[in-house]
């Protein structure tokens, strides 16, 4: 199988860190804060590497968009088993406003350039929770998509994807090339082994600029304000069901 898989990996604030809003309310504090690979991106990388181990794909390419620091994230993907990396350089104000639309344009351009047969992404990033990049990328490429995947199987030139949806599980068959987004139960990402960390050192990471791909990263969105969620207020105990109904009516809830 000559398939090449493109895996998108995003560098986000580590899931265990307590998020703090910047005093000027323009965003959250990222300086000096621990960052790691988005957990759903880890699952995406693991799935791609698994496909390679099953010899269903030939090459796994890890891609990340951002400043110099995202190279750490790409290297983690390499240590998990990806073959090479692509660092799309976006920094400063452009990075602050980088969102799913621009990233999906970049991924679509790279998919064409690298002649990828499959794109695997995390279903969403834990910082913006957009859940848009996979879907937009598929639309831009006019490729089918299997999102919220909890199981992926390659059958000849088709992909069988089991999707986690509100009603339960939905199984679809889509033609390759396609976009898949990984959900939580797709797999358990491996720990990078020491020999693989050593090997990752020798793997190549290519540098590319959005302009080289013909992509304009300027944003059409403007963040007006970032606030913490309202502090949770204590509840109120009531004596009877009638009291409860009355209080709910007073609060305009029913």
């Amino acid at each position: 199988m000559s398939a090449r898989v493109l895996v998108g990996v995003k560098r986000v604030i580590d899931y265990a860190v307590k998020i703090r809003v910047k005093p000027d309310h323009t965003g959250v504090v990222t300086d000096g804060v621990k960052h790691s690979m988005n957990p759903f991106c880890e699952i995406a990388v693991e799935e791609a590497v698994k496909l390679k181990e099953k010899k269903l794909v030939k090459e796994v390419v890890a891609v990340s968009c951002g400043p110099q620091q995202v190279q750490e994230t790409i290297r983690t993907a390499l240590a998990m088993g990806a073959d090479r990396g692509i660092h799309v350089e976006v920094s400063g104000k452009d990075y602050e406003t980088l969102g799913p639309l621009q990233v999906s344009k970049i991924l679509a351009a790279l998919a064409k350039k690298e002649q990828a047969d499959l794109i695997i992404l995390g279903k969403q990033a834990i910082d913006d929770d957009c859940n848009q990049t996979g879907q937009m990328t598929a639309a831009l490429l006019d490729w089918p998509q299997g999102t919220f995947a909890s199981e992926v199987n390659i059958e000849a030139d088709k992909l069988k994807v089991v999707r986690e949806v509100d009603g339960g599980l939905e199984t679809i068959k889509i033609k390759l090339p396609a976009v898949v987004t990984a959900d939580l139960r797709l797999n358990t990402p491996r720990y990078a082994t020491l020999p693989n960390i050593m090997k990752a050192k020798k793997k190549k990471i290519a540098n590319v600029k959005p302009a080289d791909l013909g992509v304009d990263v300027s944003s059409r969105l403007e963040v007006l304000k970032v606030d913490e969620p309202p502090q949770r207020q204590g509840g109120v105990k009531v004596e009877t069901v009638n009291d409860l109904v009355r209080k709910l009516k007073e609060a305009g809830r029913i």
Partner: protein
Amino acid sequence: MHALCIQTLGMAVGHGVRCLSQLAELPELHQMMRQTCRDYAQKELAPIAAQLDKDHKFPAKQVKELGAMGVMAVEVPESLGGAGMDYLAYCLAVEELSRGCASTGVIVSVNNSLYLGPILKFGTEEQKKQWITPFTTGERVGCFALSEPGNGSDAGAASTLAQQEGDEWVLSGTKAWITNCWDASATVVFATTDKSLKHKGISAFLVPMPHPGLSLGKKEDKLGIRASSTANIILEDCHIPLGNMLGERGMGFKIAMQTLDSGRLGIAAQALGIAQAALDCAADYAHKRTAFGAPIGKLQAIQFKLADMALAIESARLLTWRAAMLRDAKKPFTKEAAMAKLAASEAATFVSHQAIQVLGGMGYVTDMPAERHYRDARITEIYEGTSEIQRLVIANNILKEYQQ
């Protein structure tokens, strides 16, 4: 700019040009491996450490997983099945794992430093293939049998005997306090081949386990590191092929001392991990526990303790890293290793003691891990060279430096 810094440091470290003042950050390779060990320890070891301690249970599954990650044979070259990394990487690994579970830390350390170490350094190519490769995967672990009931610090007085009978060595005697022995598949044993030569008459041998003539004493009921087994190894008329001698005849004491020089860095790393876990526990508690109307972290008494604890750990850590880097650069490191082990083990006992103090009553009960860190820390001042021996080693080196 940031990555360039790391790259430069990486090159500097790689070329053996090591200057501690440059080392504001570890090279990227070491950061990555530290992170993977930390992730593993926090997700797979920390949640089960208390139960392993209660059950005195060897973490066989975790040891296999660590083997698959390459952590059971960090310094062993890839050609023999190891990870092919340096000693600094190994010390980082042991510290992070010990932070999750101190017993697992010592199991990893003994296999790496005390068992694989001497064979890597003194073994023939044949011996390396036979005694190293199967012990890199986590399927098998090794142990190190030097101490005896009659001598610990006095290692030169080994009374275990090795007599040549035809094309075999016959070993007899008892070894004491052997870590890993109930779970091990091989041991490096030190026995006297020439009593008249005193400590120059000791040789090292490789013995598979189990083996006729080798039996194990009862498992010691220890204060801490209870998930690792410790017992006597009893040798009665134990026959092994001549080819099982490690190094040359009479080289045993030298092999033991050189092995312990490196081994004590592994223990220093273990002590750092225990100390760090205790500090994590105390600092977290200081934020959450309120008294006198505020979190206790606001009280100077607690702040001074936390500062002293952090200082002790950071100083010991830098000593450990420096000793490891000197060893990696093939420079003399005996004095620095002794300093590192002494500083780290005393830091572990100090920090875990103060952690209980910060937690108050909660530090005394098994609901919180502070009491386990206190029990685990204590052994680090004793094994692989007591604190007293470390002081002698340091003093001897100082006096040599100032020799008239």
